């Protein structure tokens, strides 16, 4: 079991490298930009896959966590604290070397948080929000849970859209690059493209490692039991509430990491990232990829998001999404990777024959 998980991640990494080399050889290095963006969106889908697939909890508001992470990072690295330089809080932060001077939009000097500090805040903030929301929300089931997550997403979106300090409808811009390690900086510049690509997919690989080890562990088995039958699981001593909450928080944090990194990569973020349509997209990707299948979800997310970001479907982007979603849900509800052609045909035949008859 152990070997197979690491082996799969290794294979995954090999594929990542292969794609990069291919892109280089085919003289299309710019594919990497869109692949990098797709990677960060995939982080959200991966976490959501665990939540929906193993814990069986739907979340129609997960884009909100992505946005919280992104906005936290974006805001803290662009807010100018120069005016409050003398204030006690800022002085403390400066002493902790958490603040960094940089040029602002008009050429003047601004004092903001260092991206690492901002990132840390983003993660902690998301963790806290997910925990606070998770406790009451996860007590609900089915449609009520769907509504509650949808409602949460709506509230976050409304707040982001209404807040002047967060840029309201325009969102945040001029977000500086994130100097991860000496020499590697998460940002949109052309020179750093290959490095950014590996950082992004490296993160996905890391997430896959963590998530798949979770799936195969005791916790994972507990989660699968919950998905199967909550009451039965509870009667066997599984602390259902705790596991659901942990999964929820983990998936939220993953989304926030994706949001934070993408904000640095795109040098900005807008309120649309928290919107209902984005949340629905993530759910759709998980459904198509297979709710219990991490790898299916990652593959689906990578492919669909990449194609969408390249405008492959032009103005029919959403239509294609909807069509694919319906097709998969009708004919291969366990996801694209688990498509059973004979089973699907059989089902279709039976249903068509049986439809119209009473009962």
């Amino acid at each position: 079991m152990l070997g197979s998980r690491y082996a799969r991640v290794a294979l995954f990494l090999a594929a990542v490298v292969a794609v990069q080399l291919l892109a280089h050889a085919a003289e299309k290095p710019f594919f990497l930009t869109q692949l990098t963006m797709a990677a960060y969106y995939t982080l959200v889908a991966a976490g959501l896959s665990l939540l929906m697939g193993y814990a069986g909890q739907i979340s129609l508001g997960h884009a909100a966590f992505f946005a919280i992470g992104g906005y936290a990072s974006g805001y803290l690295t662009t807010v100018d604290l120069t005016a409050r330089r003398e204030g006690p809080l800022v002085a403390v932060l400066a002493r902790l070397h958490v603040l960094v001077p940089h040029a602002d939009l008009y050429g003047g000097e601004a004092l903001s948080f260092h991206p690492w500090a901002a990132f840390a805040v983003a993660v902690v903030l998301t963790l806290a929000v997910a925990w606070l929301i998770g406790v009451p929300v996860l007590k609900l089931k089915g449609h009520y849970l769907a509504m509650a997550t949808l409602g949460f997403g709506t509230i976050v979106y409304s707040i982001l859209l209404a807040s002047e300090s967060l840029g309201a409808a325009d969102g945040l811009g001029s977000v500086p690059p994130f100097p991860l390690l000496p020499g590697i900086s998460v940002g949109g510049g052309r020179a750093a493209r290959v490095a950014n690509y590996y950082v992004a997919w490296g993160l996905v690989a890391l997430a896959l490692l963590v998530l798949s080890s979770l799936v195969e562990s005791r916790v994972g088995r507990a989660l699968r039991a919950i998905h199967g039958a909550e009451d039965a699981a509870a009667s066997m001593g599984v602390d259902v509430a705790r596991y659901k909450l942990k999964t929820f928080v983990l998936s939220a944090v993953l989304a926030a990491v994706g949001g934070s990194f993408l904000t640095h990569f795109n040098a900005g973020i807008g309120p649309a990232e928290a919107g209902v349509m984005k949340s629905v997209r993530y759910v759709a990707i998980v459904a198509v990829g297979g709710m219990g299948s991490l790898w299916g979800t990652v593959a689906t997310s990578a492919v669909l998001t990449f194609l969408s970001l390249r405008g492959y479907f032009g103005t029919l982007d959403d239509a294609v999404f909807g069509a694919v979603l319906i097709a998969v849900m009708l004919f291969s509800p366990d996801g694209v990777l688990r498509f059973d052609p004979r089973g699907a045909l059989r089902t279709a035949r039976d249903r068509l024959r049986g439809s119209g008859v009473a009962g």
Partner: protein
Amino acid sequence: MQLELVLQYLVAGLTYGTIYAVVGVGFNIIYNTTGIINFAQGEFVMLGGMTAVTLHRFVPLPLAIAGAVAVTMAAGALVEATCIRWLEKPSVLRMIIITIGVSILIRELALVSWGESVRALPYFTGNEVSSLTLGGVHVSPQVLWSLATCVLIVVFLWFFFQHTSLGRQMRACAANRDAAALCGIATKNLVTLSFVLSAGIGALAGCVVSPITYTAYNIGTGLAIKGFTVAILGGLGSSMGAVGAGFLVGVLEAFSVSLMPAAYKDAISVAVLLAILFLRPSGLFGSGAAARLKTA
């Protein structure tokens, strides 16, 4: 605040409320018969309005509305036949996702067919500036038409479910589908009927509010979310609850504008909904037992 202002806000709330209430009722009809939340409900409202505007170019208004309702009912039947009918005990998750997919598809089809421009039906009586003054409060006649239509729909549904054989069969289906089937009730056809009914109601609502607001290919999503909110708030499965909740949410939003920046209007009703859900998951008017049964 003066009484006149309070009443004016109330009228505003009732205007919003009608729209929400009717969408919420649509949700409940399908939910009651199938246990499915149809996220495409908002699209039925949109289709009604859009089709009516197109038909109105050729036929007088009442005919256009009737035609639009008929076309949308057909669309509802089509959706049910292709996506719902032949699924065998699908999970809640799967159904939510399918109906989301359906709503996306309908929306995109509308975009391709009608383009992105906005349009509206003419006012049934009067026009954009006509306004009746009732005790110091000004209200557009179209608002009264909407309220009347809402009442009509509720009365019709009540009559249908209580006093017609078909309606009673649908209620039996809602209570216990397998038992109903055992009694010889053609449950599959009733499911189709519930979609058709929901679509028709949504379309009628879309036609009657179109003059007040406007109709465009993308109004469905927002309406669906509001309708869903209202249906849950009123207690899933209770049409009267949805109506009550719809008006409650409408009035709440209207008064929230008087107290705080209008920018937070949408967030307020959702926040209230969440608060209620956390304290009373079966909604304001729903019964706890029914809720538990339905979400198993």
